[in-house]
Structures are given as C-alpha cells and as structure tokens.
C-alpha cells in the first residue's frame, strides 16, 4: 500500500496534536499509542502517523468536528478556478476587441499571453527547485491570489516553521493551477472571437525591427513544432504582409485574410510556452508536495516518539497494585517475663565481651543464656527451667544490625511477670548503632508486654 499524502490541514493538526502530546504522561501515551498501533494496518510511517492523528483526535475533545465554513478549501478552490478561467477569457476578449479597427498587435499578444506567463513559470520553477534542494522557501507576494486559497487550506493562522516549504508548495500548486486555467480561458476566448469577429494580426513597433528579425524570431519560437505542424509557422510573406504602418488607412479583404494566418502560430505559442509549462509545473509541484509532506510528517517534533511507541511492544514490569504499601503498624509481638537474666540472642555477645560492657558486668555468667541459634525444641527445653525462676530484669543482647524477629518476641513471651526488660544493641566493630536500626528495635520493644521496656545502644569498642 503506497504511503498516503498528508494534506496541509493534517500537517497542522498533527503538529498541534504532537505539541499537546508533550503534556501526556509517558505511560498513558505508551498504552494509548500501542492500542492505536494494533488497530492500524499501515506499514509506513506517514500512514501510521495519520492514523494516529485520526484516532487521537477522536479521543480528545478537539476531535469533535466543528461545522465547516461555507468558504472552505474546496469551495474556495472552485471559486478561484472559475475566476481564473473568467479572467483569462475576459482578458483575451478585452485585448482582442480593444482596437476599434480590429487590428491586434502580435508583439503585445506575445508579451501578455506568452512572455509574462513564461516569466512567471520560470520564477515558479526556480522557487520549486530551491525548495526541492532544501533551501529556505522565499517569501510570497502579499497580493498573490493563491494566498486567498491558501488561507482556506490552513486550519489556523499559526506559523509552523517546519511546514514552510510545503505551505509554499501548496501556494505554487494553486498558482500553476490558476495560471493554467487563466491561459485556458484566454485560449477559449481566442477561438470563440476568431470564429465570431473580424480582426487581423499585425506587427509593428516604434523600435526599428526588420522583417528578417521578426521572421527569425517567429522561426525560433515555432522550432518545437515546425517539423510536425508546419501550418503553425509564419512565412516570410506573411511577415512582410502583416507589417503595420499608421499610414495604412484601409485593408483589402485579401490582406485581411492573409494577416489572419498568424493565429495557428500564436495559439501554439500560448499552448507551448504558457499552458504546457504551467501543467508541467503543476505536476512537479504535486509530486514535490507529496515527497515533502510525507517527509515532514515523520520529521515533525514529537512524531519520532509516537512512532517509537507505536512500533515497540508495551512493556511493564511494575506491580499491578502500584499503590504504596503502608508502613507496618506496631507488630503484635506480645511477651511477658519475670526475673534478672541475660539472653544472648544469636550470639550477639561473645562470652569474653561480657565484662567489657559495664551495664552487663554485674550479670552472673550462670544467668547468661545463649538463645536464637540451633534447633528450637532444644532451646525451649533449656528455657523451660529458666521461665520457672523469678527475675527482676531481663536483659537481651541483640545484634543491632539485624532486624528484630518474632522468634525473639516468642522467646521473651515466656518471661511473663518480669517487671523490666532491656534490649542492648551491640554495634558492629568500630561502628555506631545506626539510628534507623535503633528505631526498629524501639518499635519492637513497644510491642513487648513488659511493664517497663527500654532499648540501649552499646558503645563501640
């Protein structure tokens, strides 16, 4: 399937939509564009982007189609074409009928209906070539009639720098179209008046032009068709016979008939040098517009992001319920205990360290019990005897860097009735107990069921 040609309206709407798209959160855009891509059957970037535009416009509020004004692009173009055709017809008719004596100067004819047209075509060709070669598009004249049509083509008055060349190409395309229709109108009028009125073609100038010069000039102009259409050339006799001089008061019917022999040459000049270039340029502008517009659509800022989202798979690695999980409330780790005893949890305190800490020095080594390691049934057996004794104070040495576990809470729960419990946090060698860890243990301590519980961080060596 060939890539579609975007209209100017599409380009402006796409640019606007891409601009709005910058505000769309990335994940939402990913999901939306991926869903659009699944529906899109186009394989080319332009087709994808135009499909995306249509889909996104429908989704957004802007997608609601506003009532189109009566003077839209199509109606304005039609009006313009009719006017161009009419101007061409009227221009030629006025020109042919202007002379009261029915004399038409060939030079004026060629100047107005061939040379001016050809010059305008040359200007258009230069501009198109510059645009095709990537140069900046030159400014258009404010009174260029194509601007009126262009104004109907654009959806808004926004200046879109990226679209400058395609805007100019639309302008040129309309220019060629109107120019061709003007010429066509002029040709129609020419034939019609030729059939209905009596006028003759003469040549003359205030410059001293010789017959041979005029003959050479007409031969040069007729060169493209002289070989296959000799009727549309001008003979030396005709040139000589149609030379105008103000002294000529009246023309014989034979002279008039001879002078009318110019018309096939003139009409071929108009067709070859005015109409044909216009049509060729019109075709060229169409092709150029197609190429430029397709390239522009994929080059608009933001379109590469849309294409990337459309072409790539939708990848998610996040959790389904991304809502933040709340911090845990106080754990339900109840415990009670009586007596004075040191519980060395998970070997937090090596035996030789017992005397190093003043607060622990008073503890009878016999009352220092290692817990938190090995099989649980054996530990329970060892503790069963301890639980039966009365203690005033349970001291627990724990590794400050480890989190408090429910396993320890279970163990402390056996000391029911003990009025006080202290958790001693042992630091890592040469380090302080981090505040966060202290907080963990304080939270843990709050969950213990002793009447008095405190947490103490022991100083590092």
């Amino acid at each position, binding site marked *: 399937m060939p890539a579609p040609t975007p209209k100017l309206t599409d380009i402006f709407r796409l640019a606007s939509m891409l601009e709005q798209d*910058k505000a769309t*959160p*990335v*994940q939402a855009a990913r999901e939306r564009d*991926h869903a659009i891509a699944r529906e899109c059957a186009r394989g080319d970037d332009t087709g994808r982007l135009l499909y995306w535009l249509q889909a996104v416009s429908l989704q957004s509020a802007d997608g609601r189609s506003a009532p189109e004004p009566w003077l839209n692009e199509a109606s304005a173009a039609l009006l313009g074409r009719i006017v161009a055709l009419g101007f061409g017809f009227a221009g030629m008719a*006025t020109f042919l009928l202007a*002379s009261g004596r029915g*004399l038409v*100067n060939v*030079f*004026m004819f060629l*100047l*107005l209906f061939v040379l001016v047209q050809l010059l305008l075509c040359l200007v258009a060709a230069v501009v198109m070539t510059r645009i095709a070669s*990537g140069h*900046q598009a030159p400014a258009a004249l*404010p*009174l260029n009639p194509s601007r009126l049509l262009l104004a109907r083509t654009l959806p808004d008055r926004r200046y879109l*720098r*990226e679209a400058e060349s395609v805007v100019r190409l639309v302008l040129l395309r309309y220019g060629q179209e109107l120019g061709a229709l003007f010429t066509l109108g002029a040709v129609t009028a020419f034939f019609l008046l030729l059939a209905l009125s009596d006028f003759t073609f003469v040549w*003359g100038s*205030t*410059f001293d032009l010789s017959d041979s010069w005029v003959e050479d000039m007409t031969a040069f102009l007729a060169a493209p068709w002289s070989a296959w259409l000799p009727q549309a050339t001008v003979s030396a006799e005709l040139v000589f016979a149609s030379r105008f001089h103000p002294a000529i008061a009246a023309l014989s019917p034979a002279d008039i008939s001879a002078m009318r022999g110019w018309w096939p040459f003139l009409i071929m000049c108009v067709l070859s040098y005015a109409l044909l270039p216009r049509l060729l340029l019109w075709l060229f502008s169409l092709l150029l517009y197609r190429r430029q517009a397709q390239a522009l659509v994929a*080059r608009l*800022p*933001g379109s*590469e*992001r849309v294409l990337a*989202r459309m072409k*790539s*798979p939708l*990848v*998610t*690695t*996040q*959790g389904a*319920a991304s809502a*933040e*999980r*709340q*911090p*845990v409330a106080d*754990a339900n780790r109840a415990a009670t205990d009586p007596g004075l005893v040191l519980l060395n949890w*998970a*070997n937090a305190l090596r035996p030789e360290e017992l005397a190093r800490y003043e607060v622990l020095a008073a503890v009878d080594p016999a009352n220092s019990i290692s817990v938190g390691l090995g*099989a649980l*049934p054996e530990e329970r057996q060892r503790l069963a005897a301890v639980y039966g004794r009365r203690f005033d104070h349970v001291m627990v040495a724990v*590794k400050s*860097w*480890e*989190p*408090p*576990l*429910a*396993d320890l809470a*279970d163990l402390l729960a056996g000391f029911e009735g003990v009025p006080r419990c202290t958790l001693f946090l042992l630091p*890592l060698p040469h380090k302080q107990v*981090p505040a*966060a860890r202290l*907080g*963990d243990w304080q939270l843990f301590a709050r969950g213990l069921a002793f009447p008095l519980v405190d947490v103490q961080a022991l100083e590092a060596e």
Partner: protein
Amino acid sequence: MNTSKRKPEPVTVPTFAVVGRPNKGKSSIVATLARDDAVYIDARAGSTREAQRYPMRVDGETLYELVDTPGLQRARAVLDWLASNCSDAAARPAAVRAFVEQHEGDPRYRDECQALRPIVDGAGIIYVVDGSCPYGADYEAEMEILRWSGRPSLALINPIEGEEFVGEWSAGLGQFFTTVRSFNAHRAEVSKQLELLELFGHLDPNWRASLERAVAILREDRQLQVRGASSYITDLIVEAINYRVEQSVPEGLPLEPVQQLLFGRYKAHLVGRERQCRQRVEELYYHSRLKRSEQELSLQESDLFNTEQWYLWGLGEKSLLLAAASAGAVVGASTGIALDAASAGLLGGLGTLISGAGGALSGMWGVRRYADKIGQLKVKGIPTGGKMVSYGPSRNINFPFVLLGRALLHQRLVRSRTHADRNALDLDQPLLEWLGESERKHLAKLFDDIRNDRNSAERRSELGEMIARWCDDSAGP
C-alpha cells in the same frame, strides 16, 4: 499432615520469590528489577506485610514475575514444624507445602506463609542478605527451609551500607546455594540488572527462553528510553532558542507594564517547559515520584525586549511597504496595459512596464511618507497603529548551553538511578564540564543556525543525534 487441602496451580510463567530476613533489601531489589518506584521501601524493618507480584508483561503476555515477600520472622519454629512432620528427605517439599496450607490462616505464621506460598506454587527462590552485616549462624534455619522446598534458588548479597562482609557471606551462602551473586539494589547499573535477570533464567531450563526474551525486550526498551529522552530534550532546546512572546500596544499606552507581563510570560513558559520535559524524561525511565533539589532556571535578560512600530491593524513597516508596492504595481500596470492597448501595442509594452514600476514606487513612497499618520488614525476611537513589544528569543550564547546542561544532567541522574533509591536528585552540579572544545564549538554553531533558521530541520536532527549520544548509557557522560 494434610497435603490434599488445596492443590496448587502449576506455575507456567517463570516466577521468582524474593525472600529473606526483614530489612535486608528485598523490596529494594524488587523495586530495581521491576523498575517500580511505587514499591514501599522503608529503613524500618518489616515494612512489607503482604506478598506483592510484579509481572513483566509484553503486550499482555507475562514473561516472568517477581514476588516481593515479607521477611521470615519465625524460621526456627517453621523448621521445627517441618522436622517433626517429615520423616524422609523425599517428602521435604511436600512438608513445606503442608506447612503453608495448614498455617495460612494463622496470624503467627502469616509472614512465613506469604513468603513460602509462591515457592510451593513453583516459584524460584531469590534469597537476599545484607552484605554490610556479618554472616550469622542464625540465618541457617531460614536457608534450611528454602532448601527443603526443593525449588531452584540463588542467593543475592545486597551490600546496603558497604561490602565489608560480602566475602564472608559468599562463603556461608555457598553451602546452601549453588549460585551466589552480589547485587547492590541502590547502585546497580542497567547492564547488571539485565545480567541478573538472565541469571534467573538459568535456574530452570524451561525459564531460559522466556527470560532471554524478556532481557532482549528490556534492552530495546532502554534504547527507546534514550531516544525518547533525547527527543524531549531536543524539543525543549529548540523551542527555548526560538521562543518569543509579543504583545501589540495601541498608540499612547505605557509600555512598562506590558514589558513586565511579557517577561513573566516568557519565564513561566520556559520554566514550565523545562519542568514538563523533566517529568516526561522521568516517566520514560518509569520514575513517577522523584524529588529534585535544584535552582530554578535563571532568566535575567532585560536586553531581550524589542519594540517595533506598527501601522494599520498590526502590519509592520515592511509588510505595509510590500503591500503598498504590490497594490501600486497592479494599479500602475493595469493603467499601462490600457495605454498599450489603446496605442495598439506600438509602445512595445513600455507603458505597462513603466506604469507598473511607477505604481509600485508611488505605493512605497506613500507608506514611507505617511506611515506615522496612518498609525495615528483612529477608528471608533481606537488607534489603528501602535507599538509591538516582544521578548526573546534569547541571544545569550550561554543560554542554550545552560538549558542543555541542566537537561542532560537530569537525564544522566535519572537514567543511572535505580528505583530503590529514594533520595532527592541532586541537580546542583557542574554542567557540561565534560564537553570537549570542538563539541562546544559545534553546538554553538548548531544553536546559531537553529536560531537564525538556517537549515533548521537538518540542524535540529543533528542536535537530536548528539543529544541521543549523550543520553546513551554506553556513550554518555
């Protein structure tokens, strides 16, 4: 032991349960690998109370799934139950399943059941320990439980506050796990993250293809992030270089309040655009709740104000001249045509040429001569002329460099940041100091061409390519 209470559904998607003791960085690892900064991470222990699933989906198809679990609290009690309910080694996985099924409603073993449920359902085990704390024999109970489950497993040493004990842990874990890796959830580069995911695939031959595909897709996704980020940054720079605000002020009204208004609009627009660009870049990298610490974009260029006279309903002098010249030429040429036609063309078209040129010159002269008077004309009391006050675009050579530097610094910090890191982004750092002299000159030329609309499309794409190169993990600063 009742093992027929609930038949687990077979796991077809590779699933990995991240388990371990509380506060060892399980959620951090999940957040990093799942690229999800919504994962709750707290310095306090036991912040995860429910198992959470993080599936990696591609177009709706799940390629693998990570399960963040609460920390094991009563490992020894669980092991005790397992030992007393299992007589031979072959029945150990069934015993673990039986434990979960019997205790799922028991609040005492809630955390253990949450952690073990995905494992008995067929998930692989990712066991996490903290490499900044010493190895302890008290961990062996939980490792033993995991071994009992019979599921493929690997151990990750997450050095939360340092790597002091990583060696110790490697030796200890090596006795329970065939694969042990060190992985810093807060610092791991993307390549390390992807390597780890590939390693997960090696736990079971049936998972390999799925994980390899997932890793390939994640690599592509990384490239898309780079391209997307560079595209947003390029848009920002190009817009900032060309941005201009203007306001027409009718004749006789003061200009100063309008200038202040325009400066406010200019600044608000660019600051807003920069903020928007940052937000989009963060979203591209799946960061949705980053905090930033930075100074606002500074714009103090009062010399950017420009005031132009305008005449007749907003037409500037040039436009008015062009319009008057065109109109004069048309009127003059029409007269000339009539003259030439009347003289039967004997003037050789000179009438048309001279009259057309004369008309154009007259139109231009008229505008030059009477422009001020035209501007002072009033229609229903409203002046038809006045001043056009504009602000921007910035001519400061450093302005786009500053903006680009800020954007690239932000992108660099975002792209290298894991989703476990919850510190504020420190954006108050030197900008573009890594940029070479030749690149700096080239950039200056690009900015100048874009500003002056010289081959701006090509220059823009060139700038985009340069920015994409700097945004890339492998080639960037």
